[in-house]
């Protein structure tokens, strides 16, 4: 009986660990649900999946119409990330639907969505919710008659190459992707109203989106570099989404093909796809570019406890620690452009923080001569990095009645005048009253 109860206590203590494998302390995703149209994709895209597995991710392959599909149980999410490689699915099985996927993202989980020319409305709607609009013409593909891949089998120039990457080490890693990326799929554009979506891989200016099998009667809707081939979104809660119009982008076939861009002499033995998808999946699964800011502290100079309120013209020290997740541990984040604002409707103080290289950022400044409810604000948004928006409210009060200067030098003539006046009045009164 007793051992049983101990066992329960032990289980209960383990419970949080079992439930929250995704937590702010180690943001890398662990459990990934992969939705497939059919299981043959497991072998045709095995290189990509194996690279994920080798990084320690736990992949759970399921058919998209599996009736037992569910992202959460008892209010807890079972997965940290979702890969949807089932472009033609009209309806997910189980309890999964558009709203569930969006809720999954809105609660801080990641998503990789790949479509192709068979993309269903459901997949397109998920993309639209994330600020990405696929070409409405369902038979259209990206065609590029100038920067296509030279290969024996293609005559329609739908297998295109692109090397127009976003310039961000955080998203694409520090190793430069030398070889261009092969792409075969449908075009999308990013919604101009959405400020969070980024084009990671754009098509060349000569690309357009049309049906390769029919004659082009009207000018295509999407052309040139407005076409995005791969886009990412980092939501406000730092959930990361990758959307592409090509499922083949991840396939073994394109990962292993030699590539030569038309009109170019450079010939590569292997396309850039492998490096590209590996690096971008690292970013999506929070193995890179994830920042955290902790220990936001502020002190009056010469004190050790954080005050509840400042006085105008106080000197204060502000510090915050910023770390970057390296995939395994938190490393100090080093940058010279982190700023702190002392903010009340507009920033009264804006100061660049200096760092000690070990993650600590600090600055000291004088509280402005304005009272009110201020905020320390650190708003750090860098391309590819998780955005930091910290704010801490702190009231600033005016002087107390006994904090003003007791005597002001410039006022000495007035003090003199009033005291001589008083003395004079006193003497005058005595003389007037008693000198008859």
């Amino acid at each position, binding site marked *: 009986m007793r051992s049983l109860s101990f066992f329960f206590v032990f289980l209960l203590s383990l419970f949080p660990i079992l439930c929250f494998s995704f937590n702010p302390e180690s943001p890398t995703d662990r459990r990934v649900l992969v939705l497939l149209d059919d299981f043959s994709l497991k072998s045709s895209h095995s290189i990509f999946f194996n690279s994920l597995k080798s990084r320690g991710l736990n992949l759970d392959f399921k058919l998209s119409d599996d009736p037992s599909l569910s992202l959460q149980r008892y209010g807890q999410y079972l997965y940290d990330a979702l890969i949807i490689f089932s472009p033609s699915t009209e309806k997910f099985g189980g309890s999964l639907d558009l709203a569930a996927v*969006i809720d999954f*993202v*809105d609660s801080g989980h990641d998503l990789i969505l790949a479509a192709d020319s068979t993309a269903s409305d459901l997949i397109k709607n998920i993309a639209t*919710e*994330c*600020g990405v609009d696929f070409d409405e013409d369902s038979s259209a593909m990206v065609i590029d008659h100038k920067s296509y891949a030279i290969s024996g089998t293609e005559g329609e120039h739908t297998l295109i190459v692109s090397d127009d990457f976003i310039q961000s080490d955080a998203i694409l890693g520090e190793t430069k992707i030398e070889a261009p990326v092969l792409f075969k799929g449908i075009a999308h554009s990013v919604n101009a*109203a*959405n*400020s*969070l979506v980024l084009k990671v891989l754009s098509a060349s200016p000569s690309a357009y989106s049309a049906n390769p099998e029919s004659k082009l009667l009207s000018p295509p809707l999407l052309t040139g570099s407005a076409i995005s081939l791969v886009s990412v*979104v980092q*939501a*406000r*809660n730092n*959930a990361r*989404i990758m959307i592409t119009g090509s499922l083949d982008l991840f396939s073994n076939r394109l990962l292993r093909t030699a590539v030569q861009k038309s009109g170019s002499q450079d010939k590569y033995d292997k396309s850039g796809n492998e490096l590209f998808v590996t690096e971008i999946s690292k970013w999506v699964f929070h193995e890179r570019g994830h920042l955290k800011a902790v220990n936001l502290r502020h002190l009056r100079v010469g004190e050790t406890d954080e005050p509840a*309120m400042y006085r105008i013209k106080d000197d204060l020290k502000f510090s915050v620690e910023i770390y970057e997740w390296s995939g395994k541990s938190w490393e100090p984040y080093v940058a010279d452009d982190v700023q702190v604002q002392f903010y*009340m*409707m507009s920033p009264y103080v804006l100061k660049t923080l200096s760092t000690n290289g070990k993650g600590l950022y600090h600055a000291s400044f004088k509280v402005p001569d304005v*009272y*009110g*409810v*201020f905020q320390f604000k650190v708003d750090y948004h860098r391309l590819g990095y998780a955005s930091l928006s910290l704010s801490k*409210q702190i*009231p600033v*009060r*005016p002087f*107390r*009645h006994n904090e003003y200067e007791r005597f002001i030098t410039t006022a000495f003539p007035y003090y003199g005048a009033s005291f001589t006046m008083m003395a004079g009045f006193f003497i005058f009164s005595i003389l007037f009253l008693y000198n008859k």
Partner: protein
Amino acid sequence: MAAVATMPVSDLLKSFKLKTKQQELLIRVSILCLVYILAFITRLFSVLRYESMIHEFDPYFNYRTTLYLTQNGFYDFWNWFDYESWYPLGRIVGGTLYPGLMITAALIYRILHFLRFAVHIREVCVLTAPFFASNTTLVAYFFGKEIWDTGAGLVAAILISVCPGYISRSVAGSYDNEGVAIFALLFTFYLFVKAVNTGSLAWSLASAFGYFYMVSAWGGYVFIINLIPLYVLVLLITGRYSMRLYVAYNCMYVLGMLLAMQIRFVGFQHVQSGEHMAAMGVFFLMQVFYFLDWVKHMLSDTKLFQAFLRITVTCAVAVGTIALGLGMLSGYISPWTGRFYSLLDPTYAKDHIPIIASVSEHQPTAWSSFMFDFHILLFLFPAGLYFCFKRLSDATIFIVMYGLTSMYFAGVMVRLILVATPAVCLISSIAVSATVKNLTVLLRSKNKGVQTGSTKGSSSSKASSKALLDQSQPFQKNGAIALLFGAFYLLSKYATHCTWVTSEAYSSPSIVLAARGAHGNRVIFDDYREAYFWLRQNTPPDAKVMSWWDYGYQITAMGNRTVIVDNNTWNNTHIATVGRAMSSYEDEAIEIMRSLDVNYVLVVFGGVTGYSSDDINKFLWMVRIGGGVFPVIKEPDYLVNGEYRVDKGAAPKMLNCLMYKLCYYRFGEMLTEYGKPPGYDRARGVEIGNKDIKLEHLEEAFTTSNWIVRIYKVKPPNNRW
């Protein structure tokens, strides 16, 4: 009245072997005691009807500050910087309030605790106003005694103890500045008149301290600092200048000014603000006057004196004008404030300062409210003036001037009826006392001939009493009896009217609403407290609540949450920003709300209960105040042919602005009254025009049981956009 009361009990008193003087004293004291108690208990209706609670809006701020004072001590109170109101600007509470009320209540609280009465500070606050009303009756007695006689004093005490004009601001729970300020006002005036009558430095000093207390209690002290110089000026012009006046005014002005400067909120206004310049001008004028008097005394040659007078007066006027002009031009002397202008010109606020005009108690007074608040005093007042003019003295001139000026101000602003009330009571008491005295003299002069004194006659029935005098003696006596009964009838009518008004109109806390149900039973709407309690329990402690400024004090005091604007309307731009948010479309409003870090929006809505002073009815003021600072808000956009409506014919901007949406959200589905379509607004008696309201950036967080208060939560920005 005292004289009448003496007659039936005099036999009884004889057994106690008291002399007439002692008898009279005893009666006087017992009457005063009764009046003192009466003044207190007649103000307790609200406590009996509802509960011991603070009323209305401003008293909640006063209560909160008093609480702070008792908990943190005087210095923390003095230096209090309140960051829970006027977010994000904050408010220096210690420097922007009149601390007299709070200090008084805290002092009473301390004394009671010292005497081992473990009362809660709220009870002290609730009962402060009735307590001071009782004290006012005593002051009224002494004042009446000073200007007329003890009889008039007693009548004044009785009249003022139940006068609705005063009760409206001093019922239990109405914990506002006016509660103690009327006492301080009357006390200062009494001491000043006493000082003028006696020429005593001590009384003058006392009146300076009375003035100090008044300054610490209420902004209405400006009335004193302008009325007294005006009075002095009138005395100078009418040739009633005396050494007594010189001593009284100079001592009172100089000391009063120095003392008033100790109040942080007033500061240097006595020497820097245009409203206080009259007092200073009169002060200098008195010095010139005294100087001239002295020179006249020294110079025997009248011609020489005439020349000297001409030169001195010209010089004095020139110097005064130049000083004033330079002060005004350099900005050292601030010009008159809008509030002051609106007192002199009732239409000023309407055209220039909508925020003053928007307050209902700043509206010009209707005749009915004079009748309501004064009843028979309205007729006795001119009669009293007649008596005053018949027996002119320094004191009666003062009360006449007080009465006339305050009556004018009472006509300009509803709330200033309060200031006029003591004057009206005093002057009316003179009328009552003099009339009754004359009539009783007539009755008691049994066998003597017609006394010359009785020809003074009575007030309203002066003509008839004169006619009576020509008749034979018994007829005259009967007439006097009839008139006495008439006077008693009127006075008893006054008493019943006052009680009725107090119980029906002035004892409602306005935070708890009462209505009559279908079967005549009382229905209580306690929605305000329900909402504030919800805020207190369900929102994070640093949540910011945006509402129209009327509810600011209540939200901070009862909900304990930060507000954007409150009833201390010191920053017009901030209020206009809130007005603009309320009158914009939702997506424009959300920008404003985000910039102010607003988490919750609170609106008051009376469409379900028929409560008419809700935000929809106040909405045009929000538009006007918002439009006064931000011209993008235009009043005509919300009107149709100059008409304000919320039904189908309303202006499109009206139907889609934030305030409309927040008030009528989900209201279109609701059946409020039998036989009416859904979405029937009972406060305005129309079916609303926009029943399909969708909110994009806000979500309903809480609606009270009778829908009077609705609270919305501001959603965080879209996660993926």
